């Protein structure tokens, strides 16, 4: 087993990894910026090193500082969490070169999957269905039009280096191609330093489903029942659940088999997620995240597998030992992302002092959070304050438990997305299950006597 792991992250995910280390008897090293001097990840790790000033570029993205901290403390591995350096193949390569085990797949796999066009090709080669579209990059407007003639409109132009909806344009007809191509490419260039784009058929009323995978260095692979992450706002996931409501067992089997084929073809190691769109009864590969995801606890709740502990075991060279039962969902779980954003003021980010913090307890409730009363949320990083995960024997009871736990969750000092989640859980269509990714955009938030409610008729830009 690894002896000492540096956790190159902050917030709840740094805590999550530190907790797993402690339970496995691995010493943990936290790194923190001066803005995080009062943070729990710094308090709870066995050791910690201040790596830079508040801006992420100078601290949590500061590769030399992080490598130096690992060397100074004698860490033998680095766990990148999610975000920051987690999918930076250059960082993984540096770790490999200086003899630090990077907890994740090798740098070439990260690079391959980070290139959306190459990832699409790899999926295709492994026999995984991909959305009809261009074979590779589209180098000019004419090429986009050629694809359009072949697969039909609407199309979507996507940045090859992209993510989060940046450098993405929906094209309804051939007339719109030229403008959309230019602006997508420009936005991709500005955001990722790479303006190359590719084209796919645009699927409407689609659901976002994804498959958690684990693989060890000797080729053992495990895939888990799918998660449904269709409740999104501007491409940011807000609620994730598993299993996906109403998904037929044969689709589940196919999703898991396709994911298994893909990671087997990659000689994958560690944890990862294969993301799909699901529409009608078809599913298509979108991308693969070569790291731990925010929503991994949903899978942990319905399978009893500690995914972070398995990551660490695999990174130590141990074999995966996940029972076959983990392939079958045990009950139903949902995760709510509690963000420091004000849903009443267009999700304005919030920072400041947490006055009251009292997380819910009781059966079937898990909270992953770095908050405490008296903590000041710094304005420099992402807005995730806490993840509330609830689990019950079936989806209806999970929703009831979610309502109960959200209701109890006391955070004061700043506004959060707690009332938004309550509104979603009261929504008829959500309660029926199987909403598409347009769910939130199609609705407006209305304040009714202090409580939020969703009402039909939002604009697609919401």
């Amino acid at each position, binding site marked *: 087993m690894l002896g000492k792991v540096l956790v190159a992250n902050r917030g709840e995910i740094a805590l999550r990894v530190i907790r797993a280390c402690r339970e496995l008897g691995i010493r943990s090293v936290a790194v923190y910026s*001066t803005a995080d001097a009062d943070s729990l990840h710094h308090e709870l790790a066995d050791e910690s090193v*201040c790596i830079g000033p508040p801006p992420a570029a100078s601290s949590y993205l500061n590769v030399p500082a992080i490598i130096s*901290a690992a060397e100074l*403390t004698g860490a033998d591995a680095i766990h990148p969490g999610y975000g920051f350096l987690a999918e930076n193949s250059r960082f993984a390569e540096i770790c490999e070169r200086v003899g630090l085990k990077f907890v994740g797949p090798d740098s070439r796999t990260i690079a391959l999957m980070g290139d959306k066009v190459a990832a699409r090709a790899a999926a295709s080669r492994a026999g995984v269905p991909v959305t009809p579209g261009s074979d590779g990059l589209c180098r000019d407007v004419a090429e986009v039009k050629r694809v359009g003639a072949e697969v039909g409109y609407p199309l979507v132009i996507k940045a090859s280096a992209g993510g989060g909806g940046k450098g993405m344009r929906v094209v309804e007809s051939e007339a719109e191609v030229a403008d959309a191509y230019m602006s997508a490419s420009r936005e991709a260039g500005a955001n990722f330093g790479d303006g190359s784009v590719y084209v796919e058929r645009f699927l409407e009323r689609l659901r976002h489903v994804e498959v958690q995978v684990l693989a060890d260095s000797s080729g053992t692979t495990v895939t888990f029942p799918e998660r449904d992450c269709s409740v999104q706002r501007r491409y940011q996931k807000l609620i994730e659940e598993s299993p996906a409501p109403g998904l037929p067992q044969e689709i589940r089997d196919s999703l898991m088999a396709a994911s298994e084929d893909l990671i087997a073809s990659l000689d994958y190691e560690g944890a990862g997620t294969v993301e799909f769109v699901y529409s009608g009864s078809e599913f298509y590969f979108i991308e693969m995240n070569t790291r731990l995801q925010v929503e991994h606890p949903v899978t942990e709740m319905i399978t009893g597998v500690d995914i972070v502990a398995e990551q660490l075991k695999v990174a130590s060279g141990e074999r995966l030992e996940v029972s076959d039962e983990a392939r079958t969902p045990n009950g139903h779980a949902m995760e709510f992302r509690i963000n420091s954003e004000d849903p009443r003021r267009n999700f304005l980010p919030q920072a400041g*002092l947490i006055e009251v913090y009292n997380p819910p307890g009781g059966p079937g409730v898990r909270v992953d959070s770095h908050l405490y009363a008296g903590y000041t949320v710094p304005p420099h990083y992402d807005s995730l304050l806490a993840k509330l995960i609830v689990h019950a024997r079936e989806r209806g009871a999970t929703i009831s438990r979610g309502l109960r736990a959200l209701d109890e969750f006391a955070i004061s000092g700043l506004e959060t997305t707690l009332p938004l989640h309550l509104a979603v859980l009261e929504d008829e269509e959500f309660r029926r299950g199987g909403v598409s990714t347009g769910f939130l955009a199609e609705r407006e938030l209305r304040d009714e006597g202090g409580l939020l409610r969703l009402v039909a008729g939002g604009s697609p830009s919401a």
Partner: protein
Amino acid sequence: MPLEEVQRLVDLVRESGVGEIRVRRGETEITVKALPDAPAPPIAQPITEIAVQPAEGLASPERDGLHAVRSPVVGTFYRAPAPGEDPYVEVGDRVRAGQTVCIVEAMKLMNEIVTDVSGEVVEILAENAGGVEYDQPLLYLRPDAGQ
């Protein structure tokens, strides 16, 4: 409730020194609170094994009238340009702004640490060849008068 009334509630709290005012009318509830002093951060239970790294210094505050030269990077602190050579500075030395006072090595790169004030070296805080964090005070200077 009209904003004027809320404003008056806020004034009330401020002027009266009362901690909190809550008004609920039908479905409307308004709470006005004076800002409390922040509670202390939670004190974690003692950890079973606490490994105190001797070199892992924590940021010390400025001392009265002294100036701390701090590390701009995470790395290894060296007092001399190379093994066997004389240290850049000793306690009691006078240094000028712009003078190199030590080295912090990071990623095999030797970063010369330069003081931006002139004065006398009164204490060397970091241990030679020990690790230093970002922003960690390395040495104390007593600045020259009139700076």
